[in-house]
């Protein structure tokens, strides 16, 4: 018999504020203190990790939460980077406007890619058609030379925010941290909302979700568009960080890296995508001068995780600390 008071307490615990709420804002606050400890190179790596946090978190919405096998993430990333790069290179547009443009282009690409899913194309078929879409975009980058300058790639001028030039990696860091924090918080809230629960219902059983009155078609477009928005922003930041946008950066290998991030970190979990992004940005830097080992590392990590730790690295932390633990549902 469960004591009534005990049941009440359990209910209160369950409905209490999500425990990661506090830690969520703590992490970027602590990160603000990081730059003085870093040199230019390590700061660049941290910035790159921030870019891939967006890539992982955005990808996770479609692949982990909506449960659709979409292989177009590298295309969202590339289109975002090109949109921003083209605006900055050809039109000298303001920085924030260019980033927003990258996000919107990514989001439109997301909505476009969701259309075959609405035609009832699922699973491996969706994977193949989105893979073809991604490769098609890469052909566009090479051949739309008037805008993209072909396979040589675009050079992005030194970014300036309201006339204030972001001359060092540290300046970029503060901008990136702000944008990444905002978008990750927005994604976390989206996934905790009625809509986010709808995504997961579609993943778990699409027919049952539709039968319960969830507008599956609309939610699917929305999930893809949001994913494209976040990943496109990641692409925009990538263009600003690397200051060179070329077709080679958005190949199948890039796509496999994106898969590695969400799988290794932990599918369905935002904390997992962040962890995966950090791990897979830092680790290959140690192996940079050894060709092939980077691929082997990522592949072996993915294989080990898929075999032995299907929840990803983040579940290791769950065992140690309750802070990241999911409370009601896989988010």
């Amino acid at each position, binding site marked *: 018999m469960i004591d009534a008071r005990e049941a009440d307490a359990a209910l209160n615990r369950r409905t209490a504020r999500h425990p990661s709420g506090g830690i969520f804002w703590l992490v970027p606050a602590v990160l603000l203190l990081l730059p003085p400890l870093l040199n230019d190179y390590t700061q660049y790596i941290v910035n790159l990790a921030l870019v891939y946090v967006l890539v992982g978190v955005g990808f996770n919405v479609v692949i982990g939460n909506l449960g659709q096998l979409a292989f177009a993430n590298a295309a969202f990333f590339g289109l975002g980077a090109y949109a921003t790069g083209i605006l900055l290179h050809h039109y000298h547009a303001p920085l924030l406007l260019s980033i927003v443009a990258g996000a919107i282009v990514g989001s439109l690409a997301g909505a476009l890619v969701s259309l075959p899913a609405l035609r009832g194309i699922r699973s491996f078929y969706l*994977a193949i*058609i989105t893979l073809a*879409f991604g490769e098609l975009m890469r052909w566009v980058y090479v051949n739309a030379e008037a805008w993209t300058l072909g396979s040589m790639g675009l050079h992005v001028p030194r970014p300036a925010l309201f006339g204030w030039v972001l001359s060092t990696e540290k300046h970029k860091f503060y901008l990136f941290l702000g944008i990444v924090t905002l978008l990750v918080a927005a994604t976390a809230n989206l996934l905790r909302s009625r809509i986010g629960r709808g995504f997961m219902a579609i993943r778990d059983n699409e027919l049952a979700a539709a039968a319960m009155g969830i507008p599956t078609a609309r939610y699917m477009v929305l999930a893809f568009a949001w994913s494209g928005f976040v990943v496109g922003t990641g692409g925009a930041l990538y263009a600003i960080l690397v200051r060179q946008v070329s077709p080679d950066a958005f190949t199948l290998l890039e796509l496999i890296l994106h*898969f590695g991030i969400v799988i290794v970190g932990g599918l369905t979990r935002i904390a997992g995508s962040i962890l995966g992004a950090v791990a897979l940005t830092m680790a290959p830097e140690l192996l940079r001068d050894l*060709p*092939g080992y980077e*691929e082997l590392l990522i592949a072996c990590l993915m294989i080990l995780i*898929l*075999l032995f730790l299907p929840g990803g690295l983040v579940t290791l932390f769950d065992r140690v600390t309750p802070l990241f633990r999911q409370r009601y549902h896989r988010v």
Partner: protein
Amino acid sequence: MLAQLVVSGIAQGALYALVALAMTVVYRATTVINFGQGDFVMAGAFAVYVLVVLAGAPFVVSAVLALALLFGIGWAIYAGLIRPIVAGPHLALAMMAVAVGYALRGVARVVWGREVLPFPRVLPQGSFTVGPVILSASDLVVAGGVIVAVAVLGLVFYATPLGKTAQAIFQSERGAALIGINVAAFQGAMWGVAAAMGALGGILIAPITLLYPDLAASILIRGFAAMTLGGFGSFPGAAIGGVMLGVSELLVGAYVSSTLIDITAYLVIIGVLLIRPSGLFGRPIAVRV
């Protein structure tokens, strides 16, 4: 001109057909699409390269050894990596196939870096002229090999008890296991066969395209295009789809624009899946509830 393009296209398409056939074998046996099939092609070509160029073995011996090696690798990948998660979601299976292919590529890159290697000319040289068309001997060998492969697969899958076994497993693994079929052994063998077919493709492709660790990506997508065009799970479909893709690539390249050769496969995939997802010979895609 047109006749020549069609003949060359058929020869090229035969190679795509081989890749698509290998993926169809895996699909029919395990309902998994192998996203690492392109890397089997690469691995097979590298195995022959090592044996012929570095070890100095005769070509035919090397080819047989490479096929056997890849059969073993395919089986081991299935038994060690795919089987344990085969009951899991499609996503995990697709990711496992991607990761395995990536690992194979990583191994090749550890050894060969970003080099592009010339592959020895192992197929017979020379050519015949038939009317306006020039036929090269190597094209004939490739096309003949693919026709034999289709015939054997067709025979095995449609006219032997093994084919019935495959069908039973495709429809319900649990049901097949209940009536005494050794599902794991059968699927392992089919992965082995697919890997060996990939190796065969690699041996035939590498003399034309040169050999490098990233060979896999373009082959993988063309294999998918052939499979999509013919219809998933259909052997004649995969073969005919591959040939049609090869021919259309060359026709598009000659009559429209040579920059479009590279994207013919992508456009075929997108067009077919949007307009007629079951392809030319496939059955309509049913959603399993």
